[in-house]
């Protein structure tokens, strides 16, 4: 640091207006969530001010609501399936894009990413037309196909980034030392991608649990959780929906915390390795 000059002191000065503005932006981002949680305890409905007569009534109602829990189960099934399918295919696609040369490679890359950038309604409707033309009845299976396919995009981007950062020499060494390509894949490639796999998996799970736009057109008789909530919104709203939304919010926060811990722990151990190296 040199002699403080006119310019640099100015740059270091904390701009109060900007700080207050940022605080307001945070308030805007969090206000609806706070309101939502607060009114889930409000006996007198979803509106009005101030909230009074706090109660757990809506949570009790929610826990006895079979339709909601059925839809939660459906969503978990779909999301679980989507994670398996899109991670597997995303991993293969990332490996193919990273290491293989074949005709149509750039087409594959663009095609895989398309559901990420196109509005959900277009992907949803395309798959609806596909299902109708091959006589596939709309059900959780079609929803699962939609999620599994659309979310390959997320898996591929995340895993491709992981592969790019990976040290190829390790794989070369493994092959040179007599391991088969299969052994090398399981013992070197996959462990190296652990972090990317977990964070892609969490992201896909969350996105699938929350998906409406694609699901909207592929749903059969059994609702997923978002579609069940959607159907209820049309019939009139009670704080029971605030209660389930609050639970969804809590689960999301727990998932982020897990994701964040995995991330920092891995960075931490990496740093330690660096320090231990001679």
């Amino acid at each position: 640091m040199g002699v403080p000059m006119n310019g640099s002191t100015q740059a270091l000065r904390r701009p109060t207006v900007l700080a207050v503005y940022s605080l307001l932006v945070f308030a805007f981002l969090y206000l609806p969530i706070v309101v939502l949680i607060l009114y889930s305890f409000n006996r007198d409905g979803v509106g009005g001010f101030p909230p009074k007569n706090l109660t757990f009534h809506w949570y009790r109602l929610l826990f006895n609501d079979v339709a909601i829990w059925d839809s939660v189960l459906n969503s978990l099934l779909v999301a679980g399936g989507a994670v398996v399918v899109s991670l597997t295919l995303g991993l293969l696609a990332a490996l193919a894009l990273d290491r293989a040369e074949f005709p149509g490679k750039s087409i594959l890359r663009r095609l895989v990413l398309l559901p990420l950038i196109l509005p959900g309604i277009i992907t949803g409707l395309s798959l609806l037309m596909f299902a109708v033309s091959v006589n596939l009845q709309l059900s959780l299976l079609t929803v699962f196909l939609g999620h599994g396919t659309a979310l390959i995009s997320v898996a591929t981007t995340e895993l491709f980034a992981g592969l790019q950062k990976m040290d190829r020499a390790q794989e070369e060494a493994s092959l040179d030392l007599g391991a088969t390509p299969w052994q090398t894949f399981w013992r070197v490639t996959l462990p190296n991608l652990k972090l990317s796999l977990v964070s892609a998996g969490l992201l896909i799970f969350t996105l699938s649990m929350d998906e409406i736009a694609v699901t909207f057109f592929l749903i059969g008789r059994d609702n997923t959780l978002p579609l069940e909530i959607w159907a209820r919104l049309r019939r009139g709203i009670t704080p029971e929906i605030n209660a389930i939304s609050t639970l969804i919010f809590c689960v999301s926060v727990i998932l982020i915390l897990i994701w964040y811990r995995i991330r920092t722990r891995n960075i931490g151990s990496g740093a330690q390795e660096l320090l231990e190296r001679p």
Partner: protein
Amino acid sequence: MYSRTYKSIVSLPPILWVGLFLLLPYALMFAHSFWMVRNGLIVHQWNLRNYAALLQNPVYLEVLFRTARIAAGVTLLSLLLGYPLAYYMSFHAGVRKELLYQLVIVPLWVSYLVRGYAWKTILGSDGVLNGFLQYVHITHVPVSFFLYSPFAVILMLTHIYTPFVFLPLYASLEHIPRNLVEASHDLGAGSRATFLRVILPLSLPGLLAGATFAFVLTLGDFLAPLLVGGPSSVMIANIVQSLFGTAYDWPLGAAISVCILLLTVSLLFATERLEKRWAFR
């Protein structure tokens, strides 16, 4: 280094899956847009009538313009909220940077539906905002124009896309070498000049990426108008949705979808090229 077998094992399954469940469905969408409905059945007779109808009937263009206006509103508001926040965090937040960053990320993970629903309960005529206004005696009758208006759609989508806009903006601000900012100050430029002539131009790629996100995501949205918008804010994707539902004209709906698809892809293509150009200067 990798054998031929290895390469085909990794590339064949994704090619087949994506070909069957992505390429084929998108191709079907294109095909439908050239077909027609006769007596309540889809006839595979190739024609351009759907596209002609889109150009001739002013309703479609009108809705498309309204959609573009709403998308522009969302983009502008998200930038107005996201840019100062990103700027503050990148240059002035100090040690709290990481925590604040996480706080912006959290709402991203919160369900779209949950956030839309929250706005519905806030803006409704017996909602939280009206309750509050009456409680502090600003009004005595509930204000009904908060909900079911384009304003509500813009507000809800701005809330959802501000974190999306923030991320690339913040990343581009973080990448600005700090010695450039110092040099600008040392050479006598004030804060305003430094911002306008050093920081803003260098953050343009991030700004563009964020703006594109918000615009494109709003362009294809049909849930926000259904949730908080009402009839005055019907957007282009709502028309598609009703054509695939009660109105039952899949070919016409497919033609509009193809237009949305082409619009989205060309917008992304154009901004990607612009970003690259600005990034090298």
